[in-house]
């Protein structure tokens, strides 16, 4: 699907990028401003941005590479969610102690 010069995939990528930025900010605040807690979402954002830039620069990229990279990003998002859950549990436990 194409709306003018913008394809639906571009739109999805942009929305994903914005949501990812919001997630980083929220996660950073949840981690009480400690940079160590924000590395995981930033790494996911970088991974996703790299994929988007690569596919923009080389639209004729091999389909198998695109599929592999896309799968890797999906798995990476799951890892990121798991790390977020670990962080939440750790901070909740610490809050309960104090």
């Amino acid at each position, binding site marked *: 699907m194409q709306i003018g010069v913008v394809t639906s995939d571009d739109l999805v990528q942009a929305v994903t990028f914005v949501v990812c930025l919001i997630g980083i900010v929220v996660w950073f605040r949840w981690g009480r401003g400690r940079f*160590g807690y924000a590395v995981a*979402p930033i790494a996911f954002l970088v991974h996703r941005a790299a994929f988007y830039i690569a596919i923009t620069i080389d639209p004729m990229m091999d389909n198998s590479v695109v599929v592999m990279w896309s799968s*890797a990003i999906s798995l*990476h998002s799951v*890892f990121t969610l798991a790390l977020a859950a*670990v962080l939440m549990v750790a901070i909740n436990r610490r809050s309960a102690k*104090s």
Partner: protein
Amino acid sequence: MSIEAIIIAVIGALPGLIALVGQLRKDSASASKTTSEREQLENEITEKVLTRADTEIVKLNQRIAALESSLSQERIARQTLEVELSTERKARIELETRLTAAQQRISALEDELDQRNKRIKELEAARGSAGGLIGGKR
């Protein structure tokens, strides 16, 4: 999903995992250090409070002892005053008894005086009439 995809995902997630674990350990160590410092501070404060409380208790005990001594002195003074009051009451009762007796004596003397006066007047009257009779015979 291919092995390459899994490897790339793991490599992508690894920095976040390492940073997260490192930060958690660092925060945990910091929290335990903070807890230890807080406990030490609480102990110091408790010790100071207890020392201050002991000092205040000693001062209060001294104050209580002084008040008890003062109370004892006041009791002794009150007992002395009560003894004096009792003596004074006895003296007053004795004086009142003597006063009553003297008043009775005065009353008796006044009665006797009245009788004497009356007797004198009777005698004078008798003498007057006796004098008149003697003069008439002459």
